């Protein structure tokens, strides 16, 4: 079995994280040396019975104190800033990222690509392309950890969390659940398969579902009754969804929020918590009637709606 000290570095961020890690290791070795060194030296030189000069030193001790207070402080601030900067980058997905939705549950991962492909405990991605994961849990807190990419994020029930990476090496890398979630926490293991773009396309085609997430969402939109109020031909006074995603939504009470994934999810599952301005609290909640996967499909559909409804796309 090959002996590794660090995991493979297979993402664009991995190098940046490793750099800080090695710098900290170097700093630690240095500090241990300047502590253990004198400690050992003094322990030997000044052991009882040794011939050493023990006349009490006349040192301005405050100079030492100030030095070994200020220098560690400055070093600490430097590392903080460096790591915070890289962290900011880790937490900010690029706008051209491919989106994959993840639902964690005891004790497996369910993944859906925008193209509709679904996977269990596995994630196929193309190399060199930013991938953004939008994640939620069906039950307890889990965590989607890919050591080789140096990324990790808690997967929390009741909200969406995101994680992104760009893979740089073809290969198969572990996905671990990194937040204790019950009996089979340690079995909740998966794999990321990083492929050449051509192979990835082929994989997409051969394992396709026949419908994209957005199409699945559209199907649900009709099946579950959303179109009854939100469809173009509906007589009910309900907010229009075309062009909604990403834009501002004024609420009753004066607040203005952005129609992001969280807003849409809450609108479906907790509609009473944010009423759009000019509308009444009439929408029923779909909590319990839709799975997290299905909510994500609906969101994909709503994202896909252009500002003008085009003929033929009416439900």
């Amino acid at each position, binding site marked *: 079995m090959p002996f590794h000290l660090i995991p493979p570095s297979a993402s664009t961020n991995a190098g940046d994280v490793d750099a800080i890690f090695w710098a900290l290791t170097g700093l630690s070795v240095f500090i241990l040396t300047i502590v253990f060194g004198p400690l050992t030296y003094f322990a030997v030189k*000044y052991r009882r019975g040794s011939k050493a000069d023990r006349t009490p030193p006349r040192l301005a001790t405050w100079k030492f104190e100030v030095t070994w207070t200020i220098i560690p402080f400055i070093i600490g601030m430097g590392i903080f800033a460096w790591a915070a900067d890289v962290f900011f980058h880790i937490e900010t997905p690029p706008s051209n990222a491919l989106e994959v939705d993840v639902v964690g549950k005891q004790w497996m991962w369910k993944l859906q690509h925008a193209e509709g492909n679904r996977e269990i405990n596995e994630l196929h991605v193309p190399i060199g392309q930013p991938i953004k994961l939008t994640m939620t849990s069906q039950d307890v807190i889990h965590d989607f950890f890919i050591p080789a990419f140096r990324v990790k994020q808690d997967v929390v029930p009741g909200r969406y969390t995101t994680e992104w990476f760009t893979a740089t090496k073809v290969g198969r890398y572990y996905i671990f659940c990194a937040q204790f979630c019950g009996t089979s926490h340690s*079995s909740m293991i998966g794999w990321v398969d990083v492929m050449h773009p051509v192979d990835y396309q082929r994989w997409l085609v051969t394992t396709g579902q026949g419908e994209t997430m957005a199409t699945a969402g559209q199907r649900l939109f009709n099946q579950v009754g959303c179109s009854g109020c939100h469809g173009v031909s509906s007589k009910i006074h309900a907010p229009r969804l075309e062009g909604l995603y990403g834009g501002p939504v004024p609420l009753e009470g004066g607040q203005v929020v952005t129609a992001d994934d969280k807003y849409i999810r809450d609108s479906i599952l907790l509609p009473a918590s944010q009423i759009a301005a000019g509308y009444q609290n009439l929408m029923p909640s779909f909590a319990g009637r839709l799975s997290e996967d299905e909510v994500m499909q609906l969101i994909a559909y709503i994202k896909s709606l252009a500002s003008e409804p085009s003929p033929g796309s009416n439900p």
Partner: protein
Amino acid sequence: MSSVQETSGLAAESYLTEHTVGSWLLTTDHKRIAILYLVSIVFFFAIAAVAAAMMRVSLLWPDGRLVLPETYNKLFTIHGVLMVWFFLIPSIPAVLGNFVIPMMIGARDVAFPKLNLLSWYLFMLGGAFVVYSVIVGGVDTGWTFYTPYSTTFANPNVITMVAGVFVAGFGSILTGLNFIVTIHKMRAPGMTWFRLPLFIWSLYSTSLILVLATPVLAITLLAISVERIWGLGIFDPNLGGDPVLFQHMFWFYSHPAVYIMILPGMGVVSELITCFSRKKIFGYYFIAFSSVAIAVVGFLVWGHHMFVSSQSMYAGMVFSILSFIVAVPSAIKVFNWTATLYKGSITFETPMLYALAFIGLFTIGGLTGLFLAAMAVDVQLHDTYFVIAHFHYIMVGGMVTGFMGGLHYWWPKISGRMYPELLGRIAAVVTFVGFNLTFFPLFVLGYLGQPRRYHSYPPEFHIFHVLSTAGASILGIGYLMPLIYLVWSARYGERAPANPWGATGLEWRTPSPPPRDNFEETPLVTDDPYDYSAIEAELIDQTGLR
């Protein structure tokens, strides 16, 4: 200051003389209460250590075939709960602090002796609940009780265990309250704040955290229970709650709690380093104020446990910067202890070996804390074996080592007997070797990506677990040895003089073991602490005059 040999063939009357059960269980003597705590924490430590042993043996097989996953989860839970609340938090404060503080400041007892006894009973009642919850099937949430797992998904024994921690928490609040009042008001004449030994400064800072942080834990545990029993949505999103709220409330207490667990150890080290290098401490004021600084800033960093929890990035940055700041006072202490050895006259009795080990192991533990405070690196390391290695270096390499050092140092005062020195030194070295072998490989394992709380793991991580379990068996021997020889020495050890170490400090000016009221007459303090002379020590050693 030279030590005076006081040997006597017959045992003089002391606080240990009366030995009815009632005189122990209804005592209000701080020294006896310390021993009550000592016996009970050893009991809880033993259970938690057995759990750890079972885990380490099970981890020898990557597929975890030795125990069921649920059993493994229950093992790490009971290990954490007992070690944190029923061993580490009481260890130095309730055992050594209770015994030594009144004597060190020249008092007859603590300010509220009856509250002191009550605190032990609350501790025991809490422990009973926790042990009971294990007997009826155990809890598998981890000592951190994260929601909604603990409130909605885990088995109902959670409530019993949480109740146990809740009750024991009141015991630790009372201990902290007692120490604060005692240190403020019971100092002997002449014992000004800046003549106090640094052990007192550390315990004072610890007590501040005990009284201010523990109530928040109580509220958090209450909230878990309410959600669990009545289904009221506080943390479970399905019931309308917020799971991350739990993490804020829990860590608001539990981060300061880790400073409760390390500050006393640092206090012990200050005493040992000065005594065994026969030198005044380097930087008294800086060490004293560092203790207080750690206590205060320690309340402001709890979010560093939550960088990937979906907490806001900006909140994370505030917590990260404060975490780097809180590291500085600890660094100051390490440098000051090292500088104390300069031009000293150093001997290597068992307590000193533990003190030196503390400095080394705590430094490693503290440095690895910087890795975790660095946000980008914490993304990789959070909830992996790296974190386990980090906190065991601080808690075991630091605190337990400090406890062992202090226990050996004050053993002659507590029991009136000397422990066997050679065995003491051997055990210290065995513990040091075993400890490093157990926990160092886990740093590598963590960066490689193995998450914590894993009952089974991919086979490529096997070698690290084999090394760690090998180390654990050596560590176990290192802890078993003092258990045996200290108990043996209480009966058969060489009788100890009042001041076997020639140490400064008021506690050494009474007989070993001390009488019920500690001092014949209230001492009058005129010297600064640590009034040692290395040159004099050498002279005494050379001329053979003691």
